[in-house]
């Protein structure tokens, strides 16, 4: 079996199933944990509590003004990376094609030139973030295998994807196999490290907002 | 004919003209002829037309009828020939730029001349015998 056939066949199936099982495991494992019982009565109705949760998901996308000077660099670079990645994944023709093949849904793509620019910015931001992590003494102290491995497993698909779309350095078949395999490794790792923030960031903000609304605090 | 257009026409035409000039120099120095296989290059139809236009027309057009028709046109540059070969159905099967005093295929081959000579002699002998009889 060629590497490409393996990547598009058994590896893809295995990675998908592991990622699904892992994400459900992690979410169930967190949501079913014991929580501190709230003895006070709820200040607001369930609807207000839920909308509080939703509001918090949105309001916490931007740091509070008084924190801004300290966190501006990291947050900006991080947003460049995340938005760039969003553009590549959801506005790039080949990825829309993947979603279409899975779900049947399709939507218009952005021109290739836009994706090229987005890829360059994403890669630059990703590298800049690693440099920052290595140079900042506090971050370096706090960083562990999870941080560096997660970085690497995001770096590889982006890099192989750029080479593949440029059809350069190696043959198309080889580049495609490497790109798909790198995505599969990312998929397998995703539920078990900090990359699970793809789901948890929204869940976390939502729960905090819900609890704040319950207490009548601002959200 | 393949249809590529990811390279600008003028860049390719310039490169080809430079190569032809190089082949001409080699011929003038050493007497060695050279050719460029046009079908082996990623040239669009418009690029070929541009090249043809740049090379222009010379004094000679020769037509060869052997396993289909082939045409040899000297360009406005003496010694630079545009050769185009078609098979019996008229399909172009080869197209070359040849740099030579004359494309080799136009010269009569020794082997063919030998056979023709033999045939010619036989024709004369037969006639001689006929006259006697």
């Amino acid at each position: 079996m060629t590497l490409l056939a393996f990547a598009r066949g058994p590896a893809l199936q295995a990675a998908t199933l592991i990622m699904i099982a892992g994400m459900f495991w992690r979410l169930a494992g967190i949501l079913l944990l014991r929580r501190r019982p709230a003895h006070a009565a709820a200040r607001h109705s369930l609807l207000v509590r839920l909308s509080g949760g939703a509001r918090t998901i949105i309001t916490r996308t931007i740091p509070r003004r008084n924190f801004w000077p300290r966190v501006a660099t990291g947050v900006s670079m991080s947003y460049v990376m995340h938005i760039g990645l969003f553009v590549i994944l959801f506005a790039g023709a080949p990825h829309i094609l993947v979603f279409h093949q899975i779900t049947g849904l399709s939507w218009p793509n952005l021109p290739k030139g836009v994706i090229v620019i987005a890829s360059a910015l994403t890669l630059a931001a990703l590298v800049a973030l690693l440099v920052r992590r290595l140079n900042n003494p506090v971050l370096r102290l706090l960083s562990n295998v999870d941080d560096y491995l997660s970085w690497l497993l995001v770096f590889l698909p982006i890099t192989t994807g750029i080479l593949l779309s440029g059809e350069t350095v190696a043959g198309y078949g080889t580049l495609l196999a490497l790109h798909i395999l790198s995505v599969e490794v990312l998929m397998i790792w995703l539920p078990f490290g900090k990359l699970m923030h793809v789901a948890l960031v929204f869940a976390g903000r939502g729960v905090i907002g819900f609890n704040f609304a319950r207490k009548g605090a601002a959200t | 004919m393949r249809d590529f257009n990811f390279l600008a026409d003028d860049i390719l035409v310039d490169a080809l003209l430079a190569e032809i000039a190089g082949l001409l120099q080699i011929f003038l120095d050493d007497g060695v002829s050279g050719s460029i296989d046009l079908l082996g290059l990623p040239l669009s139809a418009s690029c070929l037309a541009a090249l043809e236009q740049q090379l222009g027309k010379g004094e000679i057009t020769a037509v060869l009828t052997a396993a289909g028709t082939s045409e040899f046109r000297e360009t406005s540059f003496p010694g630079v020939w545009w050769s185009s070969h078609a098979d019996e159905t008229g399909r172009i099967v080869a197209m070359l730029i040849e740099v030579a005093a004359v494309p080799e295929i136009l010269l009569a081959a020794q082997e063919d001349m030998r056979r023709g000579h033999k045939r010619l002699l036989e024709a004369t002998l037969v006639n001689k015998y006929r006259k006697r009889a």
Partner: protein
Amino acid sequence: MTQYAETLGEMLARRGFGRRSLLKFAIVMTSSLALPPGMAPVMAANLAKAKRQSVIWLSFQKCTGCLETLLRSSAPTIDALIFDFISLDYQESLMASAGTAAELTLRQAVAANPGEYLLAIDGSVPLKDGGVYSLTGGRSNVSMLEEFASGAKAILAIGTCAAYGGIPKAHPNPTGAAGVEDVISGKPIVNIPGCPPVPEVLSGVLVYFVSFGRLPDLDDRKRPLAYFGTTIHDQCYRRPFYDQGKFAKSFDDEGARQGWCLFELGCKGPTTHNACASLKWNNGTSFPIESGHGCIGCSEPDFWDQGSFYTSLAGGSATGWRNAGIAAAIGLAGGAAAALSARSKSSVPPEEKI
């Protein structure tokens, strides 16, 4: 078996074709083989001097499509004459004799050209159960291959079946089908894959062999570089549409009618090495993509087992919703178990203890 003494040049002259015809043929072949154009006179001179080349063709586990493609290719007169000259001494489907008479022809051909004949194979070689799944005159293909390969100058594996196992090798491969290269080692082998292969490729290889006495340059899969050095994608006339992001979304939609790229409809052009996009089929008439269907990758090994022909290269095998559901259920169960175990270990959260 009579061995003709006349050279190819003499035979052509007898038929009224002078040196110019042969030189023209050589010019065309040189271009097709991607050789420098200056090689044409050398090829013509070598062809003129060439003696008859014996070819023995053995058909194994095949559909006969490879032979048909060569027969149906309408070659110009001089090409046909030259290929008559390359003497097809033994070919079961074409020859008049059959049974023991045919076997005798085969023995005589081998005896008359020891170490000099080209062995052409089409069809895969079944290996399971002693090769009993394909027999000729009661004799297994693998046994015939081993015997006749030993006296051959070189072996041409014609078609994807002979080269890599092809369709018979598709999962679950009940006959244990294999390609020639999996059975024979120590002999020069040329793979000419394709289902069927482009006829001009075989012509090119034979002409090269007769002209230069050796096989053309091969890639790491033993395919002639001149024809298999690039992918369909690299030579495809629809490539500008791929580059511009113009894809047909379904067969016969507006994009398909405009002749847009067929990548999203499963075209395997980017990963398939062959000459279809440049040489095309039926004397340059068309090829699958030009006729509106994506490339199925038929000249690559195991092309039949790469998933659907209509799933693009950007996708792959789906797990199916059922399996996904099972995975989710397992995840839920595991996560719940982990959470419950955590819950039972801790009592009241520490902050509450005052």
